[in-house]
């Protein structure tokens, strides 16, 4: 998709739905919106069926604000909670089969580079901890080894929330869940460490407690993925249903987990750092 394709042919506005007209006229396209402007522009995310007070929804909403070019982005996801909101964005979404998200993204990114030589298309994989660390693990690792240029975002709710609360590789040791009544017997997988070993250019770990930071991390990750190499973001997005967190306490829980074991962390390769600096200097020169 591009902004040209989205723009309504003059005279046809009255036949389009209100939401679409609002999106084209008052949406975030063509200008980078800031988190502080939220509430005064039409967001690319629409109404969706995710649970009330879900931290994952908040993270997805902030991600959509952080994307540098939503009109030139393609999202890839798989079964899991996240896709309930991701399918309700005005960004093309590909529903990968379980396990192949990063393989689909690799092919798509290469294909888009051939098809649109004059445009920059961003490919972003957004899936849960089950989709990426368990079932899609081999495709994720191999896309990193091959240095495929796209962003992988893990919505880590530490459980299979959609199917009744089974433990995943990313669940903490000892966590009691409906379908793990004795508590998990193994440690949480160290995806950050694996990403580092496989040479991912930009790695970040965060929680949605700071909206501005979420948007800026997403922006950095997508920009680096354009030029340098694969990027990975691991975000703690609690499941308030399976972990029985009352919705008013969702962000308190996120802050608590953040201070205990999920603190903000950024690992940038030298090449990626140099690229970010070059963007900054060219921006300043324009001003």
């Amino acid at each position, binding site marked *: 998709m591009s902004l040209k394709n989205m723009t309504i042919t003059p005279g046809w506005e009255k036949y389009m739905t209100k939401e679409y007209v609002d999106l084209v006229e008052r949406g975030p396209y063509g200008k980078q919106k800031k988190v502080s402007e939220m509430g005064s522009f039409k967001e690319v995310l629409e109404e969706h069926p995710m649970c009330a007070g879900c931290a994952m*929804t908040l993270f997805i909403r902030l991600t959509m604000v952080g994307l540098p070019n939503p009109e030139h982005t393609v999202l890839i996801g798989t079964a899991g909670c996240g896709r309930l909101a991701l399918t309700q964005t005005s960004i093309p979404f590909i529903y990968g089969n379980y396990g192949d998200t990063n393989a689909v993204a690799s092919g798509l990114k290469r294909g888009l580079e051939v098809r649109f030589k004059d445009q920059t298309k961003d490919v972003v994989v957004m899936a849960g901890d089950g989709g990426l660390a368990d079932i899609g693990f081999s495709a994720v690792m191999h896309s990193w080894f091959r240095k495929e240029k796209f962003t992988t975002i893990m919505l880590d709710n530490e459980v299979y929330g959609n199917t009744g609360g089974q433990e995943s590789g990313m669940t903490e040791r000892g966590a009691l869940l409906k379908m793990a009544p004795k508590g998990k017997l193994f440690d949480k997988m160290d995806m950050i460490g694996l990403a580092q070993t496989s040479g991912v250019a930009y790695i970040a770990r965060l929680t949605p407690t700071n909206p501005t930071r979420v948007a800026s991390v997403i922006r950095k990750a997508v920009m680096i993925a354009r030029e340098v190499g694969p990027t990975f973001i691991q975000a703690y997005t609690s499941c308030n249903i399976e972990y029985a967190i009352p919705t008013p306490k969702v*962000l308190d829980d996120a802050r608590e987990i953040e201070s205990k074991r999920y603190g903000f962390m950024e690992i940038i390769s030298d090449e990626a750092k140099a690229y970010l600096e070059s963007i900054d200097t060219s921006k300043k020169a324009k001003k």
Partner: protein
Amino acid sequence: MYLVAHIDQAICSETACRLCTQYCPEANTILYDNTAKTAFVAVDRCKGCEICVGICDDLAKHHAIKMIMITDLKETFELSKEGFRPESWTGQHP
């Protein structure tokens, strides 16, 4: 019946924190009127999670948001009816 967030605009317009608009998990639910400098709620989108109440009370310390019964609202702002039209916001929000 169910509860929805309701913002006291007299308190909200005295501040410019906009935190509730950033922490609400639902898109375009807490809207911000730049002329009247106040946030207000599109009740048809509010799922009643109360995150904004916690943000306003604990983080911003303005105590401007309360949960109220949808039936107790005399007038409501519904995004599906009005559409997202900031230019038509006159500063008077239910």
